[in-house]
C-alpha cells in the first residue's frame, strides 16, 4: 500500500504554510502533528464531540471531518491564533470556572465566539443549543452558559449577569 500525498498551501493563524501531506490525513491531525498546534483536540474522529473545532475561512468546522487537502488555499484559525479575539471569553471562562479538564474548551470557545458574532444577545437556551455540538464531560454546562452570557452582556455594555 502506498500513501498518496499532495502539496498543500494555506494560511494557519496568520502564517503561510506549505507542506506535503497524505491525502487521507484530516485537518486536525495536520494542525496538531505536522504544525504543532495542539490546542485543537481529538475526541471522537466522528464529527460528534466538537473537541477538534477550528475556524476555516471564518466558519467553524470539525477538524476531523475536513481533510487537510480540502483546506488548500484556505485561511485556518485555531485556538492558538485566537488570542485577542477571545480575550473576554477566556477571562469569563476562567473567572466562572467554565472548564475543568480543558479538553473541550478550545472548541467550546470557538463555537461560543461564532455564536456571539452571529447573535450578540443570545438567550440562555440559544447558548445551550448553539453549543450542543461541543461535548463537555466535566462541567454541568451551566458555568459555560454563564460565561458566554456574561460576555454577551458585557459586549452590549451592560453588567455581567
Amino acid at each position, binding site marked *: 500500500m502506498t*500513501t498518496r500525498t499532495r502539496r498543500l498551501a494555506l494560511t494557519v493563524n496568520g502564517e503561510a504554510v506549505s507542506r506535503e501531506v497524505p491525502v487521507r490525513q484530516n485537518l486536525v491531525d495536520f494542525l496538531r502533528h505536522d504544525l504543532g498546534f495542539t490546542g485543537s483536540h481529538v475526541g471522537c474522529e466522528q464529527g460528534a*464531540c466538537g473537541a477538534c473545532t477550528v475556524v476555516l475561512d471564518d466558519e467553524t468546522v470539525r477538524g476531523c471531518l475536513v481533510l487537510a487537502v480540502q483546506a488548500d488555499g484556505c485561511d485556518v484559525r485555531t485556538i492558538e491564533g485566537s488570542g485577542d479575539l477571545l480575550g473576554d471569553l*477566556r477571562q469569563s471562562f*476562567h473567572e466562572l470556572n467554565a472548564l*475543568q479538564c480543558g479538553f473541550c474548551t478550545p472548541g467550546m470557545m470557538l463555537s461560543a465566539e461564532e455564536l456571539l458574532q452571529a447573535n450578540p444577545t443570545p438567550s440562555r437556551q440559544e447558548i445551550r443549543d448553539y453549543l450542543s455540538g461541543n461535548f463537555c464531560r466535566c462541567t454541568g454546562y451551566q458555568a459555560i*452558559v454563564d460565561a458566554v452570557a456574561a460576555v454577551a452582556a458585557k459586549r452590549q455594555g451592560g453588567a455581567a449577569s
Partner: protein
Amino acid sequence: MSIGASVPRDRARRLLLGRGNYVDDIALPRMLHLALVRSPYAHANVGTIDIADALALPGVVAIFTAEDLEDAVSSWRAEHKLFPAMAAPKQFALARDVVRWQGEAVAAVLGNSRAEAEDGAELVSVAWNELPAVTDANQALAPDAPILHDDMDNNLAFQTQVTAGDVETAFNEADHVEQETFRFHRHSGVSLEPRGIIAEFEPSESRLTVHQSHQTPHQQQDLYARLLALPEHKVRVICPDVGGAFGLKHHLMADELVACAAARLLERPVKYIADRLESFLADVHCRDHEITARMAFSATGEILGIQLDDLFNAGAYGQYPRSSIAEGNQISRLTGAPYRHQHYRADVRMAFLNKSILGHIRSVGHPIACAVAERLVDLGAETLGLDPIEVRRKNYLNGDDFPRTSAGGVEFEQLSFNGCLDKALEIVDMTEFRREQAELRAQGIYRGIGVATFVELTAIGPEYYGEGGQHISAQETCLLRLEASGTVRCYTGTTDQGQGIDTGIQQVVADELGVALADIEIISGDSALCPMGGGSWGSRGAALGGEAALRAAATLKQNILNIAASQLQKDPGDLNIDQGVVIDGASGAAHMAVPEIARIGHFQPYSIPDGVSADLTVTERYASRGRMFLAGNGLQTAIVEVDVDSGLVTPLRHVVVHDCGRILNPLLVQEQVRGGVIQGIGAALYEELCYDEDGHLLTGSFADYLVPMAGEMPDIEVAHIETPAKTSELGAKGAGEAGTAGAVGAILNAVNDAIMPFNTSIAETPITPPRLLQALRRI
C-alpha cells in the same frame, strides 16, 4: 481566609490558551505508534496469527503477539483478600488462546504513524474460531452456560451477603411490603480525552518513563515495575494534563501495558491513544445490575427492613488491581443508608460474561443504591397514602442517631439528611409544583418531581485495600519547599484531572502558612517527584491530600517562626505569619518578611543557633484510622416533563443540596457537583452500551451512545450545608460522587411521578423513549 474562597484555577489559564499538555500533545524522537488487533468476536479461540503481510507494509516496524510478550510482561489476577473466595482468573497483556470480549487485543502493531500502524493491523490475519458468547448475567449463571474460564466450574465470580437484624421477622410483621425489580444498564465514564500513554525505555539504565493520562501515577509505577520486572525506582509515571478521568483512568489497562512492553522490546518510545471506538469497546465499564429489592413498612410509613438481591457482572475478568466487586459491595452497603431501619439483608452475585471489564467509574454503586431505595420509598408512600417527603423525614437518621454504623455496616460520623431536605424545600415549592402539575395534566402535559436522598462515601480508608493486599496508597503525604526567594513549592500525591484539587491544596497551604496564593506552586502527577500517594479517585483529594497539606504547612510555618524567633530574640510562640510577613502575634506589628527568613535559612544558616528546628523542606502525612470511608450526604430534586406520545423525557429543573463538610472552594465544588449531576442524568436517560445476543457492541460511536449535551440539560441549583468531618483538622469530606450519586434516583422518581396518571411505572435505566413507551403500553 483563602479556604472557602471561590478562587479560579491557575492551570485553567494555560488550558484556555490552547496550551494544555495532554499525552497526545507530546512527541518524542523516533516515537512509534501502537495500533491493536482486536477480537471481532465476544468469545473465540485464537488460532494462527499471520503477520507476514502486515509486517511487509512500509511504515510497519514490528508486530507482537502474546507469545512475543511472554517473557516481557507478567500476567495478573484481580484478587482482593477481603473477598478471598472471589474468582480471579489470569489475564494477559495480549490475549492468548482465547478472547473473552469483543475488543480484547491479540496483536500489537507498531508503525511510524498511527495510520500506518492501523494499516498493518488490518492486514494481520487471525484464524478465529467463534465460541458461544454469554452476554447476560442470568444466562451466565444458567446450568448449561458456556464457561468463560477453564479453571472455574461455572461463571459465578463471587457471592456475598451483608446482613443486620432479623429481616424475615421484620417483613413478616410489616403492614406493607413494596417490591420492585430494577435494571440499570451498562455504561462508562466516557472522558472526552480517551486513554493514552507514551512509554519510553532507556536500556542502559533499565529506565521506563511513562507519560499517561491517568489518576494514579504511583500505583502505575508500582504496577509497571512489578509486571515488567523493573526496579521500581527506575520507573517514572508522569500524568500531564488529563482530559477527564471519572474513575476510568485509575485502572491498569492491558493496552497501556502492551505499549510499555513494546517500548522496552524495541527500545524506542511508543505512543498509544485509544480512539473512540476502542474506548467504547475496551474501556472499563460500569453498572449493569439487575436488582430485586423489597422494603417493609409499618402502616404509618416507618421503614422496618430492606432486603435486596443484586445480580451483576465483572465482564470477562476482574478489574486490576482493585477487582470488580466494589460496585456490588457498595450497593449492598448503601441501599437505604439514610434510614433508621435495623433489619437488612443484601445478597450480591457477580458473574463473568463476554463483555469488557467492569471497573470503578464515578460514584461506584451509589446511584443504584440510591435509586433502588428512593424508588421503594415513593412506591411505599403511594400505596400507604402517605406523603413521600414525610415518609423520608420520619425515617431519616437524625441528630441523636449519630455516630452510627448503618445497617449496611458503614460508619457515619454526623450526617444532615433533615437539614438537606429542609433546604431543598426552601428552594422548591412543592405545593406550588403540585398545583401546577395538576393544572398541566388537565392539558395533557405530564410533569413529575422526584426526590432522592443519598449517602456519599469518600476518602477511602487504608484498611480496604491495605487488608485487600493491593498496592494502593490510601495515605497522603505533602512535601513543602520554601525556596530561597520565599515562594513555596508544594508536592502532593493527589492528582488534578480538572476538578481543581491543586487549587484546593494551594488554598490550604496559603491559609495555614500565611502567604499569598500566588506564592505557592503545586506540583502533582509525577511519581518520581511527588511523595508517594494515592492520586485522585473516590473523592479523596480534599479530605486526605488537603489534610496532609495542612499538616505540612503547619510544620513549615513553625520552622519559619523558629528561624525568625532566633533572629529577633523572641519566643516563636509569640509570632505569627500574615500575608507573607512574620508579625507579633499579639500586636500584629510587622517583624520580618518571609523571603528574608528564607534567605537566612538557605544562605546564612550559621546565624541560626544549633538545636533550632529550621528545615525549610518538610513533609507530613495523613492516613485515616479505623474507618473504611468518610461519609457525606445530600439530596437531589428533579423536575421533568414526559412526552407520553414520543417517550422523551425533558429535565426541567434540578436542585442539589449537598453536605461535603468544609468546602475548600465553592466555585469549583459547585460545578463539579453539576458535572456529576449531568453524568447521572446521562445514565438515567441516555447512556447505554448495548450489545447484541452475540456480544457485539452496537453503540460504538457518539451517534449511538448518547451523552448529555448543553441543549438538553437544565440549570442545576446547588446549595450546601457544611458538617465538617470531626476526624480531621481541615474537616473536608469528598465532593466528587454526589452529583452522580443522586441524579439517577431523582430522575427515576420524577419520571414515575409524571406518568402516575397512567397507572404504570418504570424501573429500568436509561429511561429511553422505547422503554418509556412500553411502560405506557403505547408500543
